[in-house]
């Protein structure tokens, strides 16, 4: 076979010589025949058709089909070069569409589809719920299902000091010692973490760094091994709130001193796409990395994500069921000897097996956040590409009309129709290929833009643009598909030619082509209507969210997050010190009002509690006693401007030792008291006993725009019902928050040098960050919507102009018979209006169907939002009528005398 291929290649190279030789051989044969028969003619007859012989031989050597493709492609390039305007428009719009699709696909592939780059990712399983470390230890101890099991905790922000110099914030992950072995990841230099590293608390001060960090921070020097770094994790929104902090002697600590023992291989990014730790640290180093928070022994601190690898012979469902049984037993044992029958039933009903999922693509917290917005984005750019295809199909159709004479000529000279279709398709594919190639640049730019826009999506997402085989494969596939989509119909239509008619005259019977063009334009109008309506819905959703009344004025409001626990404060000293800090903040220039609370606003942490009892209320189910809460400083409501509807707010009276009090929100008051006055009533928690309700506050949105207000209560920071873990100061500045924020940082540093660097944000900024996905969709759809309608309008204009040109004679006759200009205009505009109406109606129907599918993404409106629909209809009508009116006006200016002489 290979020898045969080689001979073919040799033939291809020496083709001219080959043909010469064949001719000479033929001549020799003819001469011999002539000599024996005496006549040249007779010899020729005997020999047969020399040309056929040559062609058959050429065919035999087997490059003909490829050669033909090459000739077709070369011809196509020449054809396109002869129409540079058409080619440029087509290639640019394709490049744009293909680029946008590839950019979004790259993101989807990375975040949603791709498996982790580790060995046998399909064997990995993850538990979709974070656990306490003691429970993780129990799972590891009793595990008989997985061949190994590891706990991890991602930290988005760690302060890293190298050679005494602070290097800013770096992400990291606390992992079990067997983590790398479990994933089957080997160090590129040095070693990975080992089981010995996490034997006991704070014993294994080793660290493995990522390839990117190694290159960026250490210039890829092999001398990095053995280097010591100081790492201090920041307490973040990691599910550790609502946690009692033990520990008697506050320990002054700057963090953990770790020795770099190895560098992870390039391409390894951890266990969750979207999270890219740069430093891996043994999980038992946690108390040193996050000082003051001994999570390893705390049964109520949930922070460990669990990943396991099942043996290749254990099916997924079996692993799930067996591990769920182990987990269930652990939950029962955690209750101690006193497990009630009720609790036992509750545990039996928990869907534990459902929380154990395939880990082939890693943990999926980010995936869940982005799957809906990314799907919508993919849909939007898909529609844009579809419109580009329809547009090009229409242009090709128009070109086919101008080339009708050429095509008819070829057909009459004996070209097969299939051969011609293939040739025209080749032209489309050449266009698509050029568009795809140019699309790489658009894809790159689009990817950069997307990453920049997504950066605020909860955690930083830093995706490199990967021109890998998958992305390029996708790009090639959609280029090919688009080539067929826009090329096939015009090619078929163009070759459907009545030979005699076309060759005789320019031909008047182009009604088939015109029907197809109209169908294409109607489709374009439909798709762009869909996009327009979508843009309206998403813009209005964004507007509704941004203007949602959160219950307080977010302008000039600053959140300053301080970590007193990290600095070693314990017990009542936490509240006292934070109150002192509040006094100092209140007198800073530019500060109008200030207060503090544990969870802050839009800060990513919230607390919940199962109440034991609410006076006078009989719960229907366990869930009825759930409520969220916050622990707040004095004057919280008046500082933020949240009205107290009944009773009083929490103030200076509410100190340790005084009666425990609570303020409840409107929703909670309605739920438990049904309009009765709750003031003076009592509620009870397991931890601290009874609290007296002293006030009712108006509902406020503390953390999310979309949530319907939850039942929420507030207690004094000085009468905590749960261990205080942090303090968020809410500060309203008189003017520009910028300078005040700088002052605040300095104030915290001068207040206590041991306090970790505080986080300072404007609430507006935090709110906007929580709307990144919504904003991205709204922006992109409102960018693509008008673009789509513009393309559709151009299409409509083209079709109507063509119709007018074709009917010049008819219009001339009408006018000669007495039709006036306005009648002619009305006739043409009516035709355009019909297309608009059909396309628009189809588009609105589609918008309604799709809108219902994704209605969870809307806010404050339904998929059948009249404002968006009417706005889209108005835009459509104006643009469409303009596109129809211009050709109509041209038609009305037809001079009957010239028109009748026309052609």
């Amino acid at each position, binding site marked *: 076979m290979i*020898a*045969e291929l080689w*001979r*073919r290649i040799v033939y291809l190279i020496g083709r001219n010589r080959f043909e010469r*030789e*064949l001719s*000479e*051989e*033929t001549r*020799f*044969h003819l*001469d*011999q*025949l002539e000599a024996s028969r005496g006549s040249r003619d*007779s010899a020729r*007859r*005997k*020999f*047969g*058709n020399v040309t*056929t*012989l040559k062609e*058959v*031989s050429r065919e*035999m*050597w*087997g490059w003909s089909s490829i050669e033909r493709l090459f000739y077709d492609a070369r011809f196509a390039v020449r054809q396109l070069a002869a129409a540079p305007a058409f080619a440029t428009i087509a290639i640019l719009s394709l490049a744009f569409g293909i680029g946008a699709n590839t950019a979004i696909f790259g993101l989807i592939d990375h975040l949603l589809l791709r498996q982790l780059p580790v060995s046998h990712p399909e064997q990995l399983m993850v538990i979709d719920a974070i656990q306490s470390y003691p429970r993780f230890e129990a799972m590891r101890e009793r595990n008989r299902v997985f061949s190994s099991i590891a706990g991890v905790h991602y930290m988005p922000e760690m302060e890293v000091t190298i050679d005494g110099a602070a290097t800013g914030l770096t992400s990291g992950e606390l992992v079990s010692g067997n983590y790398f072995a479990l994933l089957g990841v080997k160090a590129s230099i040095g070693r990975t973490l080992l089981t010995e590293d996490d034997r006991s608390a704070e014993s294994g001060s080793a660290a493995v760094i990522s390839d990117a960090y190694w290159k960026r921070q250490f210039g890829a020097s092999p001398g990095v091994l053995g280097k010591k770094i100081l790492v201090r994790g920041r307490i973040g929104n990691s599910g550790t709130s609502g946690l009692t902090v033990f520990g008697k002697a506050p320990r002054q600590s700057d963090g953990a001193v770790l020795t770099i023992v190895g560098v992870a291989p390039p391409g390894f990014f951890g266990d969750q796409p979207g999270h890219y730790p740069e430093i891996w640290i043994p999980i038992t180093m946690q108390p040193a990395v996050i000082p003051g928070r001994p999570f390893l022994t705390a049964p109520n601190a949930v922070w460990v994500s669990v990943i396991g690898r099942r043996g290749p012979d254990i099916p997924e469902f079996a692993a799930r069921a067996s591990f769920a049984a182990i987990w269930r037993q652990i939950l029962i044992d955690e209750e101690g000897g006193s497990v009630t029958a009720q609790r036992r039933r509750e545990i039996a009903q928990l869907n534990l097996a459902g929380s154990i999922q395939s880990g082939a693509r890693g943990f999926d917290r980010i995936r869940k956040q982005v799957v809906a917005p990314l799907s919508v984005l993919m849909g939007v750019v898909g529609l844009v590409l579809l419109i580009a295809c329809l547009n090009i199909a229409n242009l090709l159709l128009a070109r086919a009309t101008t080339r009708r004479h050429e095509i008819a000529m070829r057909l009459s000279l004996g070209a097969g129709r299939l051969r011609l279709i293939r040739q025209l398709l080749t032209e489309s594919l050449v266009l698509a290929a050029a568009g795809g190639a140019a699309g790489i640049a658009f894809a790159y730019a689009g990817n950069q833009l997307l990453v920049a826009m997504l950066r605020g999506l909860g955690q930083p997402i830093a995706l490199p643009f990967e021109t890998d085989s998958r992305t390029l494969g996708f790009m090639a596939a959609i280029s090919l598909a688009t080539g067929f989509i826009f090329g096939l119909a015009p090619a078929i239509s163009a070759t459907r030619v009545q030979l005699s008619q076309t060759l005789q005259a320019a031909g008047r019977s182009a009604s088939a082509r015109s029907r197809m063009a109209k169908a294409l334009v109607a489709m374009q109008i439909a798709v762009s209507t869909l996009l327009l309506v979508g843009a309206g819905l998403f813009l209005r959703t964004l507007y509704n969210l941004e203007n949602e009344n959160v219950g307080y004025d977010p302008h000039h409001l600053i959140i300053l997050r301080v970590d007193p626990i990290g600095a070693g404060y314990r017990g009542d000293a936490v509240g006292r010190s934070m109150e002192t800090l509040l006094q100092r903040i209140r007198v800073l220039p530019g500060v109008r009002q200030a207060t503090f609370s544990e969870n802050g606003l839009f800060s990513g942490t919230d607390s919940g509690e199962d109440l034991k009892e609410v006076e006078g209320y009989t719960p229907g189910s366990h869930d009825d006693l759930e409520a969220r809460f916050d622990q707040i400083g004095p004057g919280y409501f008046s500082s933020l401007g949240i009205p107290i509807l009944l009773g009083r707010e929490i103030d200076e009276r509410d100190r340790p030792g005084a009666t425990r009090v609570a303020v409840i929100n409107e929703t909670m008051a309605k739920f438990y008291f049904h309009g009765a006055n709750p003031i003076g009533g009592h509620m009870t928690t397991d931890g601290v006993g009874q609290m007296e309700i002293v006030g009712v506050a108006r509902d406020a949105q503390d953390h999310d725009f979309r949530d319907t207000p939850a039942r929420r209560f507030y207690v004094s920071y000085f009468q905590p019902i749960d261990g205080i873990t942090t303090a968020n100061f809410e500060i309203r500045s008189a003017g520009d928050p910028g300078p005040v924020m700088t002052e605040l940082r300095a104030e915290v540093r001068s207040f206590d040098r041991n306090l970790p660097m505080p986080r300072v944000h404007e609430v507006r900024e935090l709110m906007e960050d929580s709307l990144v996905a919504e904003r991205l969709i709204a922006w992109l759809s409102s960018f693509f919507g008008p673009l789509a309608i513009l393309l559709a309008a151009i299409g409509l204009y083209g079709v109507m102009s063509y119709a007018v040109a074709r009917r010049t004679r008819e219009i001339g006759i009408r006018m000669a018979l007495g039709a006036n200009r306005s009648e002619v205009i009305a006739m043409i505009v009516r035709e355009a209006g019909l297309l608009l109406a059909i396309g628009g109606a189809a588009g609105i129907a589609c918008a309604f169907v799709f809108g219902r599918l994704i209605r969870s993404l809307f806010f404050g409106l339904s998929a059948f939002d009249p404002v968006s629909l009417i706005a889209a209809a108005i835009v459509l009508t104006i643009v469409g009528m303009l596109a129809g009116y211009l050709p109509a006006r041209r038609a009305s200016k037809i001079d009957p005398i010239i028109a009748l002489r026309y052609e």
Partner: protein
Amino acid sequence: MERERRSEIPPGTLSMLVLKTLARLGPMHGYGIAEHIQQISDDVLQVEEGSLYPALQRMLLKGWVTAEWSQTANNRRARYYKLTPAGRKQLHADISEFAKVMGAIHKVIQPA
């Protein structure tokens, strides 16, 4: 008009005849091959030139023969085809296959 009584060469057997001719004569040009087959078969088998040359090309492609230009007896340049070991193997395979098929056909058509 010149009419000759001739029989079609059964499809698929031409390359076997060519290979056998080359095995018997040694290197030979296309005309010589055609003449030889015609003579040996007492003018029954007429080789169509339109099939001969494509067949030769195919054998070149398959590597059963090689071609070389050299002089004929009366000093003309002609392309001589020569059997390769692969061609010889192919010839044996063809012949045994042909014999098998002929034997079978014979069995079918012989009088009961």
